[in-house]
């Protein structure tokens, strides 16, 4: 490859990075603006918006609500996803491809359609819109991701590990909990944090499945519709920092997973 294309490519890469980061940086900065009016240039600075958000009981309540939903749906997705993976991974049977396709289905359906279908579904099984419905929706959406990650990890587990455990007297259930599950740990941590992020960031499902209590993205959406204000920037920045921290943690554990596999 010639030197010119190499330089051109690196310029494109860094331009792309700027495109990704600049809007987010501007959003964080705008939260420090000493005026109710969103826009440039910024003449005065204040930390009032951030401290205001920290003391806002409503925002903190909504935050706890979102967090509870994320934790519950992540736990359920991990249990169900692992179970699906342990069944789909090692076993060969007729119609496996169809079961696999149906397993992945919620991950490929466009967001709005998934939300609508789940809304109708929740009504059909008599779940009122609210926390339970959102947890169900997020679990359905997240299970495919867990199943795929766990299946990938499971395929690298040497058969001899399980056989050794069985020879030492463990039955299939004990062997799963003492050999398979510890082996899957890095995959479960990575997939779990990914689920937390998906659930915490999700808007469209929470919006259609939610009752009167908003989740954090729904709250930001509602506030945005009634007008932009630095207060929203402060809330959004808190969400941003939290999700970025979670993501970095997930990345680290996924990297450990790859190291363990090789």
């Amino acid at each position, binding site marked *: *490859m*010639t030197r010119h*294309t190499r330089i*051109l*490519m*690196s310029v*494109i*890469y860094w331009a*792309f990075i700027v*495109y*990704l980061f*600049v*809007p*987010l940086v*501007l*959003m964080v900065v705008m939260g420090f603006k000493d005026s109710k009016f*969103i*826009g*440039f240039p910024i003449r005065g600075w204040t930390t009032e918006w951030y401290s205001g958000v920290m003391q806002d009981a409503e925002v903190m309540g909504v935050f706890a609500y979102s967090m509870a939903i994320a934790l519950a749906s992540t736990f359920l997705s991990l249990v*169900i996803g692992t*179970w*699906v993976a342990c069944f789909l991974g090692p076993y060969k049977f007729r119609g496996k491809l169809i*079961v696999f396709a*149906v*397993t992945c289905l*919620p991950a*490929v*359906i*466009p*967001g*709005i*359609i*998934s939300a*609508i*279908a*789940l*809304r109708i*579904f929740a*009504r059909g099984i008599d779940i009122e819109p609210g926390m339970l419905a959102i947890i*169900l929706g997020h*679990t359905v959406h997240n299970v495919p991701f867990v199943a795929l990650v766990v299946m990938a990890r499971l395929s690298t587990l040497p058969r001899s590990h399980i056989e050794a455990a069985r*020879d*030492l*007297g*463990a*039955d*299939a*259930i*004990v062997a799963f909990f003492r050999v398979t599950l510890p082996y899957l740990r890095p995959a479960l941590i990575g997939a779990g944090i990914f689920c937390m992020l998906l659930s915490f*960031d999700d*808007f*469209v499902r929470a919006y259609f499945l939610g009752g009167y209590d908003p989740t954090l*993205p729904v709250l930001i*959406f509602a506030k*945005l519709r009634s007008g*932009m204000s630095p207060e929203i920037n402060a809330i959004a920045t808190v*969400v941003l920092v939290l*999700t970025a921290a*979670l*993501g970095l943690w997930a990345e680290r554990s996924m990297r450990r997973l790859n190291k363990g596999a090789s």
Partner: protein
Amino acid sequence: MRRPDRKINGMAHLESKYAEAPCAPAKPVRSGKAARRNFWGGLLANDTYQAVVDVLLKNERRQFWVLAAFPLAWVLFAHLGPVLQMFWISFLDSYPPTAGRQPQFTVDNWVAFFQEAIFVMPFLRTLVYSAVFTACTLILTYPVAYFLAKHVKRRNQLLFLLLLLIPFWVGEIVRTYAIMIMLGNNGALNLALKSIGLIDRPIPFMYTGFSMGVGIVYLTSLYMLLPLYSALEKIPNSYLEAAADLGAGSWHRFRKVTLPLSREGVASGCTLVFLISTGYYATPVLLGGPSTTVFAETIAGFFHVAGDKWPIGAAFASLMLITTLGLTGIFLKLMGRSGKGLMK
């Protein structure tokens, strides 16, 4: 119930193993006490547990069904169920059911779509916009993925990739809002253009197809980048070197070697981005205007009002699901076939 001997022997082995506590050899085993079992050893020795296990795991066939029953039930119920129910509701004349009245079968909900331009237009607009946005994402991210896979040293690749990943952990709403601040009349872009003297008054970027496009490309580019990166990374450098040795210029090498070999990544990236961008609701609402209404907003409209509009909404959502999955299916077929053709 009699257990197989192997198990008993095995258990004795387990127990002695834990009694000897290989991880803490310095600690002497307490005398006068029976060998201490851990939880799992205790569980295996428990008769009730053994009885249950003997029934559950009696033979291979039963083991298979014990393991399979729950995943199969979940997948059919929770993954397929909502979609099938949506199809079913779309053929009813009322839903949720009212007391004392049986819903009737009807195709009116599907017919309604073709009778109104305010339904057909957003539908077509969604498909065209999503296709255009997907193409833009592909053109924008291909060089980035190529740079990452072929020019960055392997040691640094993870770091460079991480830099791309971080913004994508932030959710749809927050990133859409960030774009609003960028593109507003008092936004960063207008300020920058004004300060370098290109414009006198702000350009109204917001509430147009352009702002929506910037937002959606911003949201989806990772789903294009990752498949492209993994496809490009697999191409051995020796192929490119061989082509160069045979006298192919850089454009020719790209056209004849890199592009055909990255076809799989292009196909899956485009499929993902297309499907995801048709499904956005909040981004078009916040960044789009009255002339850019997409089908997601049309569908959502039927669910905001209480009651009897659900079947129409379900019909429209079903129509969109069939169309998008159908289109991506055709697209993948075409890509697969021509990809093989180019490889020969």
